[in-house]
């Protein structure tokens, strides 16, 4: 589980899941567990490159929680790559960042939420795009 994407085992995942792209292992694990507790399935990857590989399998998350500053491929680059592919461009993206608003503004995203994250705020924006999970 440490090296690959996390997959939920719940029934909901067949239809709806959330893609988490975050390089910090602790945060990644916390988000996975918290989303699971909220009734959402999640797939977690540690950088943009891994996220693109995941999407290349044809998987389509209902929303992507995207960190910006990451090694290998950062959030900005990942977003650009996403927008180049019409089949990916429409997936909603929620940016989670500790960067300054000015730097975060340089990315085309539905919402930007600033770290430190609070689960209430995360769920508010997640539920807008993934109504099924909270049922």
């Amino acid at each position, binding site marked *: 589980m440490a090296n690959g994407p996390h997959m939920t085992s719940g029934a909901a995942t067949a239809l709806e899941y959330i893609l988490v792209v975050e390089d910090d292992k602790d*945060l990644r694990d916390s988000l996975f567990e918290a989303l699971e507790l909220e*009734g959402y399935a999640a797939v977690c990857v540690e950088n943009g490159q891994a996220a693109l590989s995941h999407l290349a399998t044809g998987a389509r998350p209902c929303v992507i929680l995207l960190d910006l500053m990451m090694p290998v491929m950062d959030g900005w680059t990942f977003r650009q790559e996403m927008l180049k592919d019409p089949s990916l461009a429409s997936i909603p993206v929620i940016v989670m960042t500790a960067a300054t608003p000015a730097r975060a503004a340089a990315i085309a995203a539905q919402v930007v939420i600033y770290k430190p994250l609070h*689960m*209430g705020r995360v769920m508010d924006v997640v539920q807008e795009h993934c109504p099924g999970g909270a049922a």
Partner: protein
Amino acid sequence: MGALEHARNREVEEEAVDLLALLVAQVVDYAIFVLDKDGCVASWNPGAQRIKGYATSEIIGKPYAVFFTEEDRASGKPNKILSHVQAHDRYEEEGWRVRKDGTRFWASVVVTGLHDRRGAFRGFAKITRDLTDRRQAEEAARLAAAEQAARRQAEIDERDMRRSRDQLDLILRSISEGVMVQAPQRGFIFANEAAARLCDFDSPEALLAATREEIFSKFEVLREDGSPFPLDELPGRVALQGRPSNAVVRFRLKRTGEDRWSFVSGAPVVDRHGNVDLSVSVFREFTDRRRSEQAWQFLADASVALSASLDYEATLKHVADLAVPTIADWSAVDILTSDGSLAQLAVAHVDPSKRELAKEWRRRWPPPREGVPYQVIRTGLPQLLPEITDAMIEAGTPDKEQRRVAFQLGLRSAMVVPLMAGKEAIGTLTFLTAESGRRYGTQDLILATEIGRRASLAIENARSYTETREAVRTRDNFLAVASHELRTPLSALSVLISSLVRAAASGRLLKLSPETLTQRMVKAERQMTQLGRLVDRLLDVSRLSTGDLRLERERTDLGDVARDVISRYEDVAAETGSTIELRTTGPTIGWWDRGRLDQAVTNLVGNAVKYGQGAPVTVSISSGTSGHVRLTVRDGGPGIPLEDQERIFGQFERSSESENLPGMGLGLWLARRIVTAHGGAINLDSVPGEGATFSVLLPIGAPPAPVITEDLPERT
């Protein structure tokens, strides 16, 4: 009386008449002649001819009125005299008569009536004596007396005049205004001390002895704006034409090149006929005021320039430019460099080609350490060289070519003032004169020193501004990095706790098994501990930024330290598919601060893992020669561009390549501080694309000296 007696009497009588006739005929001192009843000349004698100039034949029968002056004739004097004689028988006078040639003579005249024996009136006898000589002698005596009296009066007058002239002279000499007097065709006839000084003469006498050409060769005469002043329009000259006038005149002394400013008024002195006798010029000099105005103007301009920008190099260049030509022909700014030599920051001259010459000069012949600029740097005191002599140039230019150029420049006077930062001189401002011939004095040095003082302030302002800006930038970096570093672990903790709180509120918490709940609580606790450690690290860095690093040396095996660090990073490395290998050669033990070395190695290994892109990381430790241990950490990452290699050791600095990677940018800064505190060195060898190798060279060191306790107060 008998006939004989009568005859004898007659004889005697005739004899007497003959004798009388002879007498008359021979007398030359008296004009003795007879006029007939009508006043015409009837007889003439030699005396008459001598005195009056007429020959007998010329005058006989002519009216005697010809002997009178024009005025007498017009007034009818000749006839009046004759009438008087007819009535009173005699007339006598002294008066002017006229000779044949028209000249006058002073005559004593006696006219008597002539009667025959029967008493009948026959005519007039006239005796005239020429008294001109006597008259002239009398006249001469009178004149002599009058002259003597006049001379005496003149002497008195002159004494009075001299006294009043001396007084006037004294007054004119003592007043501060220059006074010069000129007379038509005669040039200057008076000048006082102030005028002589103004014209660059030693004394009024020297000025008055000089020709007009000599006087005007001493200076250029300029208008206020510096244009030539036509000499015919000078107030003194205008006054010679009878018109008073005023003007501001700038006398530029050719000897020193200095400008002397005067308000000049010229006034004519005319005689009673209205002709100009004299022209009086009064010079009120206001050079000092003008200089101080110029100095203030320069100070004001320089202050504006100095406060206009915080780029002090540009500012100092501007000040150097401003000084030319108001204050100097040349000006230069030199700044002390880290090797203790002076580097020329700016040089100014009105002529750009000369500026190049000065730069060339500095390049070829840098100033000697015992020279004036370095003296100013050493003492922090300004220096004034009022006169640069040939001997000084010769002594200061060991190089022949340099000497030739120095003489060619014709340097005259110099001032060098320090630029200070606190109590340290950090540079110099140099002002030089050459072609203007101007010589600096104390007043100029005061001004220059003030400029130096203000420039120093500007430099300090600029420097502290730069430092402050740097400090603010560092602080902002720190805050950005620290907040980023704290926000991510804080997010992990926050997400964990807030999700549990939400689950508790919604009743979902009960779905979790006690094991899962415990696991999450333990995780939260661990993250909290990590956060605490992170905060400690930030505080440590913030302390180290301002204070010294105190080492607690103990016997430490660097190999053990490396093994500990690697064990902590193996998991992280594995996550990126990387491995960390340790190689040791020889003893790796020294006297070091174990905790601090752990920090340093942690940062190096952490970086290698973070930037290594999954490539293996190699840590090597070997005992070097001469009591050193070397540790190298090699990664297979993208490497570090050459231009970043020094910068990344700065506080909050990261390679530009890692802009979007998390990290505080403190690791390398801290590592270097720790290594240098141990007396060691850290360096980087990296070729972009081929990874990076950080090398640490540590001296083995010595056990800490035993703590001496005698001086400590006894415990009670």
